[in-house]
């Protein structure tokens, strides 16, 4: 019996939760689970609250086993997980802001998403944010953001620097909080699926897939095979477009605009092919609970094949350009080093984890359809610097091209969407998808009327933002944009 199933067995199992088990546990088991996270026997996969309960999703990296533990807290207090496992800290602070759940014994109780500007803000959130002090001789502070010189998402970065060297970085996020989870409460599945696709615009397919899988799991239905394959096709196109954008943007932050221009062309080709195939450049609202909104048209298939062919012809020259430009490598190699221990502790997904030796990809480790039938490898490196994260993206682009080929060649025939059955009472579902940044987790509970009672969407960036603070330490201030771009965490997905 594995540790996770022991935790579940130690509590009261919730019947209508699929596919992973959920159990309501007592304080002792909750504490054991937090301890297991702290000892790195399990990875934190999510921590969220609702009115009278806290939920903790755990992942066993090795086996891919997932379990959800719930702690009933009618008094709105639960034992802090963050006290034993720091990656949970920001999630607990967000729970306090959004649902008023107090993590007892948490070392950090400052507000996080709440900036004191909501109608029902906590009074202490209106006070000036208490940045952690860093003291020493001739240190100075540099406040950056939330409004930046370029058109990028808002976030505040507080640097403490000794000359040019960063001694400490503290992030302040939450500027783009939209209240998505609250908007979903009591909404129909259709409406909620649209909202899920708007949490983070660059990962709209990944979010929509995760949401659809959660909804289908809750209702106990499976999308038709053709729909699953089309979803994977969209997910890979999204990954291609974003990775091209990132590779170019990282080089552009080192003032190497040539790469940015060329990858920009490739990204545009992918987006146009997606537009032809799925009637939307970013494929928003293409994935719906029960299947996909539109079938792939023959001309869409042709457009995607042509794009893949063109990318295959042109991408190797760009890889060579990156690898042969010494001035560029001089910037990326060794900059923003993320220690593998930290990537493991935080369970960092995507290129950030894989660049620092965490060998995890939801498509392979949790092998959801159709990836269980597709051949691909998951690149991994141990050097953990900006260069490593660029190379992980380059290798993933190559894998995604292969995947697109395989999907187009083996796309099964049949229906692309099924009617969802009405909910037979309250039911819960857990869904996830590997977006380009990492694993997106969606948990939802449906009421008997088929409407959402509570839906939680966890962006991979929750476990990546804190690592940026660690990776920048000891680097120079002027290298921060480069490191930040190589992480490319989501503001919108995190602030929700």
């Amino acid at each position, binding site marked *: 019996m594995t540790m996770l199933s022991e935790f579940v067995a130690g509590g009261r199992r919730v019947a209508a939760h699929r596919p992973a088990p959920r159990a309501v546990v007592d304080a002792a088991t909750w504490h054991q689970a937090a301890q297991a996270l702290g000892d790195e026997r399990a990875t934190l996969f999510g921590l969220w609250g609702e009115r009278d309960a806290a939920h903790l999703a755990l992942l066993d990296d090795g086996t891919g086993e997932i379990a959800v533990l719930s702690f009933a807290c009618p008094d709105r207090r639960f034992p802090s997980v963050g006290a034993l496992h720091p990656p949970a800290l920001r999630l607990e602070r967000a729970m306090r802001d959004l649902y008023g759940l107090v993590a007892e014994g948490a070392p950090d109780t400052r507000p996080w998403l709440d900036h004191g500007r909501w109608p029902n803000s906590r009074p202490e959130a209106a006070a000036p944010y208490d940045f952690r002090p860093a003291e020493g001789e001739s240190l*100075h*502070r*540099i*406040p*950056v953001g939330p409004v*930046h*010189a*370029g*058109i990028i998402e808002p976030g505040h970065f507080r640097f403490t620097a000794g000359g*040019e060297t960063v001694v400490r970085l503290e992030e302040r996020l939450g500027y783009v909080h939209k209240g998505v989870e609250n908007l979903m409460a009591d909404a129909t599945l259709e409406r909620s699926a649209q909202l899920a696709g708007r949490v983070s615009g660059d990962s709209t397919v990944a979010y929509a897939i995760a949401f659809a899988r959660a909804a289908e799991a809750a209702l106990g239905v499976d999308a038709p095979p053709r729909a699953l394959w089309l979803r994977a096709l969209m997910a890979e196109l999204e990954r291609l477009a974003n990775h091209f954008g990132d590779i170019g943007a990282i*080089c552009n*932050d*080192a*003032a*190497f*605009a*040539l790469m*940015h*221009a*060329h990858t920009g*062309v490739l990204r545009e080709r992918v987006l146009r092919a997606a537009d032809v195939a799925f009637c939307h450049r970013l494929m928003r609202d293409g994935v719906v609970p029960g299947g996909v909104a539109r079938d792939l048209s023959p001309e869409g298939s042709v457009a995607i094949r042509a794009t893949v062919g063109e990318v295959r012809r042109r991408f190797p020259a760009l890889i060579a350009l990156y690898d042969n*430009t010494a*001035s*560029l490598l*001089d*910037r990326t190699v060794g900059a923003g080093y993320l220690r593998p221990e930290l990537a493991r502790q935080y369970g960092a997904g995507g290129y950030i984890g894989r660049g620092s030796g965490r060998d995890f990809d939801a498509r392979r480790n949790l092998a959801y359809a159709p990836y269980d039938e597709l051949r691909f490898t998951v690149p991994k490196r141990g050097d953990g610097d900006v260069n490593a994260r660029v190379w992980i993206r380059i290798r993933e682009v190559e894998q995604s091209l292969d995947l697109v080929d395989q999907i187009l060649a083996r796309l099964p025939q049949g229906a692309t969407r099924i009617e969802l059955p009405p909910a037979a009472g309250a039911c819960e579902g857990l869904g996830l998808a590997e977006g380009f940044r990492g694993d997106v987790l969606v948990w939802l509970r449906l009421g008997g009327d088929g409407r959402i009672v509570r839906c939680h969407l966890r962006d991979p960036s929750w476990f990546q933002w804190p690592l940026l603070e660690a990776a920048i330490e000891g680097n*120079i*201030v*002027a*290298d*921060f*944009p480069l490191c930040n771009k190589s992480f490319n965490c989501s503001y919108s997905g995190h602030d929700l």
Partner: protein
Amino acid sequence: MALIRDLAVQFAEMLLVLALAPGLVGLVRKAKARLTRRRGASIIQPYRDLLRLIRKEVVLAENASWLFRVAPYVIFAATWVAAALVPTFATGLMFSWSADLIAIIALLASARFFLALAGMDVGTSFGGIGASREVMIASLAEPAMLMIVFTLALIVGSTQLATIAGFMNSAAVGLRVSLGLALFALIIVAIAENARIPVDNPATHLELTMVHEAMVLEYSGRHLAVIELAAALKLLLYVSLIACIFAPWGLAGPEAGLAAALIGVLTYVAKLAVGGVLLAVFETAIAKMRVFRVPQFIGAALMLGLLATLLRFFSGSL
């Protein structure tokens, strides 16, 4: 009569550099855009930008002192005078006697001094970062520039640009190693002084990586227009300087007529265009370097300048 003619030529020259400076910036931007497969803005876009900025109101920080308001004009005046001293299309200028390389360096240094002060005046962190980086770069670029001047002075026997250009255009110059070294050093200094890649990125929006742009972040309206124009003048100055010393062909002599002056203007514009396109090609092919690698880059210019001086010192033919 001669006085009036000299005055007219000098005046024409001052207006010419002022009129051409934004065009050179526009040309570099256009060439860079074409090299990165973009269409790019029109070459006259910098003129439109200046006009737009002049029409806009000035937004001043609450704690900005008089220095912040005066600095743009001081910077512009010093840079304009420096740019007007360089023989562009004719050598026999009114101010030729004062067109001394050391004077030009001093004028640019005072402009930089005021820019760094203005950057720190408002008290934002970016202004301070930019000023400190700018001064670090300048502390290396200025000695390198002086070394280049020494080399030229030892070869030509004068620091006056008109004399240097005349000498370089004559047969007496020959092929000299020290001149080659000085050219390389001057190009490096020009890149560093004008905040171009790989030292600084003039097109960046990343406030943490800026050098020149960080100092002028707080400026707006006509102040910004004047500073932008000064920056364009400085770029033009360095291209003209390199052209005047190392490619002095086509310069109109002291007593030349209108035809020679016209030829001078045309060759000058051609030289600027070549310089601008070469700069764009270089900038496209290279990434920006880490801030702490810049001293090594400019240090190379300093060593080249020193080497050129020494070579010249030990052997009259090198």
